[in-house]
C-alpha cells in the first residue's frame, strides 16, 4: 500500500507531470491526482482507445501485445501503461 503511494508520488514529482490517473479494466478511476471531471473524461476516453490499440497490435501479430501507449499532442503528452487489470495514465507537459 505504501509502495503504491510512494511510486505514484515519485511519478507526480517528476518534471512536467500534470496528472496521474489509475483506472481499472472497467474504466473506473481508482486513484487520481487531477480533478473529478477531468478524471472521468480521461477514464472514459482512454479506455476505448487502449482497447482499440491493444486489439490492433494483437490483430497484426497474435503473439504480440501492447506494452506502452503514447499520445503526443501540441500541448502535452499522454502516456498510458496498460496491464491486464489496470491502466496507469500520466499527462506530461513537453518540456521546452
Amino acid at each position: 500500500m505504501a509502495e503504491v503511494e510512494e511510486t505514484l508520488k515519485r511519478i507526480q514529482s517528476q518534471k512536467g507531470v500534470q496528472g496521474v490517473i489509475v483506472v481499472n479494466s472497467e474504466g473506473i478511476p481508482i486513484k487520481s491526482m487531477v480533478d473529478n471531471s477531468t478524471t472521468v473524461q480521461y477514464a472514459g476516453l482512454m479506455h476505448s482507445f487502449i482497447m482499440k490499440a491493444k486489439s490492433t497490435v494483437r490483430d497484426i501479430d497474435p503473439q504480440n501485445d501492447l506494452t506502452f501507449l503514447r499520445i503526443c499532442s501540441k500541448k502535452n503528452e499522454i502516456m498510458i501503461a496498460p496491464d491486464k487489470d489496470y491502466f496507469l495514465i500520466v499527462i506530461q507537459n513537453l518540456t521546452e
Partner: protein
Amino acid sequence: MEIVYVYVKKRSEFGRQCNFSDRPAEINVDIQPDPGLTANFIERDPIDAGIQCASDMSEHEVNTERFEMENAGVNHLEGGWPKDVNPLEMEQTIRFRKKVEKDENYVYTIIQLGSLMEHCIKQNNAINIYEEYFEEEETADVADEPPSAKTINVFRDPNVIKRTATHLSWHPDGSKKLAVAYSSLEFQRSSKDMSYDSYIWDLENPNKPELVLRPSSPLVSLEYNPKDSHILVGGCYNGQIAYWDTRKGGQPVELSTVEFSHRDPVYGTIWLQSKTGTDCFSASTDGQVLWWDIRKLTEPTETLVMDISRKGVLENALGAIALEFEPTMPTKFMVGTEQGVVITCNRKAKTPAEKIVGTFSGHHGPIYALARNPFFPKNFLTVGDWTARIWSEDSKESSIMWTKYHMAYLTDGCWSTIRPAVFFTTKMDGTLDVWDFLFKQNNPSLNVKVCDEPLFSLRLQDNGRFIGCGSKRGTVTLLEVSSGICTLQRNEKNLAMAMFERETKREKILEARHREMRLKERTKAEGKEEDVKVETEEETPEELLARVQKEFFEIIEAEIRRKERAAKLSKPQVAQRPGLPKGWGGWGGSLTLVLHRGTGV
C-alpha cells in the same frame, strides 16, 4: 495457288540472334490479270451508300455526392461502476476504491507500471524526442516553383437573369465572408424581372448566400466597415447611398434622399477613418464626390465637384469612377475619372478650389481602378483602357512604369498586400494577370483564365493569398495563389523601393528635359515673331502647286542623271534613255522611281 516460301536453316542456328542483311527485291509471286474471271461478277449500278456528316457527340452526366456534415458532442458521465455501488454516493465509491487498493495484484501491477512509466517520463525530460530539426531551412525552396493559382470555390448568381458582379468586399476580421454587389452596368439593358438583390456569401457554403441585401435599386458598390463588421455601405445604380446592419436583416437601415444623392450610379464608396467610424464618401460619374455620415443619410456632410479648372462648375466636371483612400494619409484622397485623369485632392483645404491639388493624365479611357501601394504610398497603380500604369506622386507628367498594351480591356486591379512589387489585374477576356514587376515587366508572371466571360471586379483578401474575381454573369470565383506569390522574398522591399525611386528619377529627368526644350522653343518663337511679321507672303494654291511640281521634276531629273552616270561607269555604251515626258502622263511611271529611291533624294 499456294504461296510458299522455302528456306533452309541449320539446327545449330536456331535460337541465335537475327543477323539482318540487305538484298535486292525478289518477285515471289506474279499473278497476271485474267479477264475470263469477270464472268463470275455482276456489275451493280447505282450503289446506295449511307454517309452522315455530323460531329460526334456524346452525353455524359456527373453528379457529385453531397457531403453531409453534422455537428455532434459527447457528454461524459461516470459509469462502469458495479451494480452495488452507487456512483453518486461518496461513501460507497470510497469504500470500493479502498477495497481495490488493498488487492495484492493492484499493488504489484502499479509498481511494475510505475517503473515503466518513469522511464518514459525521464526520457521525455532528458531530450525532446519530437524536436523539429532544420525548421528554418525550408524557406529557401519556395522560390523555385513557378507561380500558379487554383480555383477554390465558385459562387454563382442564383437568379435566372444573371447580373454582373460589380464589386466585392471581404469581411474585415477573419475574411470568412464576402459581400458582392450585383447590378447590370449595361446601359438600359436591365429588364423588369432582374432582381435587385446583392448577397453576402459565406465561403464554406457556395450554394446559398448567407444574407440577401435588398436595396431599392441594384447596388454598384458595396463595402464592409473596417471598424464594425456588421455595417456595410452600398452605392446604388440610381445614385443613392444605403447602409445595412447585418444583424437587422436584408433591408437597408437607411437610404439617402434622392434629391441630395448622386445623379448617376455610385461607382465608388469607401469608409473613412474617423472616431465614430460612421463616415464614408462616395463618387459617381455625375462629377461629384459626396461625404456622408451614415447616422444621417438625408443629406451629405460635404460635396466636391470634380472640375479640374477648380471653378466648381458641374457641367465641366469629370465623371468619377474609382476612389482611393489610404487610412494612413487621412487628409488626402484620389479620384480616377471617366476621362482618364486622376485627380488628387486634399480634404482639409478651406476652399473648394484648393481641394483639388493636382491631376495626372495618361490613360486613354476611364480609369477603372486606383490603388496605392501599401508599402510605398507615394506610388499608386491605375488600371484603365488597355494598360495598367504605376505613378509616383512626384512625377505629374506621366506614369513611371506601365504595362504593354493588351488585346483586351483591363477592368480592375489591386496591389498585393504582402509583396510590394506584385499586383493583380483582370481583363475583359476573363483572365487574371499576376504581375511581378521586380521579376518581369513586359509580361505578367502568371496569366490565369478564370472564366469565359469578362471579369469585372477583383478583390484580394488581407492575407494576400485568396482573390475573389467577379464576372459579367455574376459568377464570383475564389482563387488561391501559390505561396511564391504571397510570401515576401528576401530583400524585396529594398529592391522595390530602389526600382520605384529609379523610375521616378528617370521620369523627372525626362520631364526636366521636356521643359527645357519647350522653354527653348518658346523663346525662339518669341524671337522670330518680330522678324516674320513683315514678310508674310500669301501663296495662292496654284502658285504653291506649280512650285511643288517644279521641285519634283527637278528631283527626278537629278536622279536620272545620277543613274546615267552610274550606268556609264559600269557599261561602255550609252543606254538610250527616253526623255522625261512632260505633263501629267509621265507621272505614273516616274512616281515609282521616286518612291523606290526616296531616301536617295
